[in-house]
């Protein structure tokens, strides 16, 4: 099936170390149009580092990243900014611009980066906020929004740039449990619309319903990858099994959540 689909992102042999300590030891995988990949793995194993290497917020030591056949790595500052527009990024701790209202957050890059007219950008921003169910909160400042609302604004902000792919770095892990649902449902909607995305998340229910493939990152490598059924029911490695059982304890029974 994947063969007929357009290749969006190629990640080839990414390496990264901090102060001599290797965090990523050669990661490679491809993402096709409309796919949703979910990355799981123990804390501190480099999931965030991997996502940041994709849009060059962190520069990898070795390896390359290609977006629709264009290399992203080894670019000068000017070109990388052009390419970053095409990669939406949603942060764990939102990183909304605190001096701008919700609608201001969504429109600023449209105006300053894409060069849109103010009115046009405003209309587009309102449209995107509507999509995440926040048009009523458009004129509120980040300090006046709940965590779930903040994260939905940040999704709208990234999505308004009309990216080829969206990257989510644990988008719900800074949220109170009762606010997680509203963010996940926005993400599910995007996935169903056919938006290409890579999600770092331990929300197994979400992974099971929307992931085309689950990647298990451990020890700086992709230890195991496969569709949810396979990873959850018959993992190849003990490590994967063990990690999933810890998640079970934390988040409830993964098997039980199955469709």
């Amino acid at each position, binding site marked *: 099936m994947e063969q007929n689909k357009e290749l969006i992102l190629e990640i080839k042999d990414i390496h990264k170390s901090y102060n001599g300590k290797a965090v990523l030891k050669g990661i490679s995988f491809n993402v096709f149009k409309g796919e949703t990949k979910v990355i799981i793995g123990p804390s501190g194993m480099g999931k965030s580092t991997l996502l940041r290497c994709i*849009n060059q*917020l962190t520069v990898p030591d070795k390896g390359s990243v290609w977006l629709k056949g264009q290399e992203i790595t080894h670019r000068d*500052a*000017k070109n990388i*900014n*052009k*390419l*970053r*527009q095409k*990669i*939406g*990024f949603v*942060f764990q*701790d939102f*990183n*909304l*611009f*605190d*001096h701008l209202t919700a609608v201001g957050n969504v429109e*600023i*890059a449209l105006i*300053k*980066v894409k060069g849109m007219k103010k009115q046009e950008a405003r209309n587009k921003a309102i449209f995107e906020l509507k999509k995440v169910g926040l048009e009523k909160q458009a004129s*509120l*400042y*980040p*300090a*006046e929004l709940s965590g779930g609302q903040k994260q939905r604004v*940040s999704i709208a*902000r*990234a999505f308004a*740039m009309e990216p080829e792919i969206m990257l989510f770095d644990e988008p719900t892990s800074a949220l109170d449990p009762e606010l997680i649902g509203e963010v996940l449902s926005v993400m599910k909607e995007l996935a169903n619309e056919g938006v290409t995305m890579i999600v770092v998340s331990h929300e197994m229910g979400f992974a099971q319903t929307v992931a085309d493939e689950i990647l298990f990152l451990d020890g700086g490598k992709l230890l195991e990858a496969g569709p949810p059924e396979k990873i959850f029911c018959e993992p190849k490695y003990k490590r994967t099994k063990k990690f999933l059982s810890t998640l079970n304890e934390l988040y409830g029974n993964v098997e039980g959540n199955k469709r």
Partner: protein
Amino acid sequence: MMIITGIVYEALPFLLQGAVTTISLVVSALFFGFIIGLPLAIGQVYGCLWVKKIINIYVWFFRGLPVLVLLFLFYYGLFSITGLNISAFLSAVLVLGLRSAAYQSQIFRGSIQSISEGQLMAASALGMNKLKAVWNIILPQALRLSIPGWSNEYPAMLTESSITYAIGVTEVLTRGSFIASRTYQPMPIYLTCAVIFLFLSYLGLKMLHILEIKFKIPGFE
């Protein structure tokens, strides 16, 4: 008592003219200090190593010398060497402004550094270059955070402006001492000068407070 009231009453218009000079001096110097201080702060945070070093030396120099010594050094020394005929008032604006820039840069630097790294990262992720990100995202927040600290610069500058008496700028105190020596009534005259400064200080802080409220944004306290 009657005589004293009379003297103060007669001196008041003359002293208030000095207040106009004082205000122009303070406002110009603060403005000049802002124009220089903000780039200094940006250079100190984002500049390369030698830019940072040069700015550090600038700040160290202007914060380490007394106002009086700076005024003497520039007005009688450096400015007169240039051969340009720089007035006492302009010299005072330049010296107080350069000095204030050193102090203001530290206020701005602190605010810039207090803004989380995530803000710059989020801006980059949206494709903004560093210049745009600093201008559109960091500075608007940093300047708002700076308002309370910056408000302290006003009374500091106001009280320091009186030191320009030493190079003959015709501000409140210079005019006061002129009258005091002619009327032999230094006490009431200098007290009147003090009251004028208290009033100017109060007035300025009120206005800055209004500014602070006007630019208030939830989450920036």
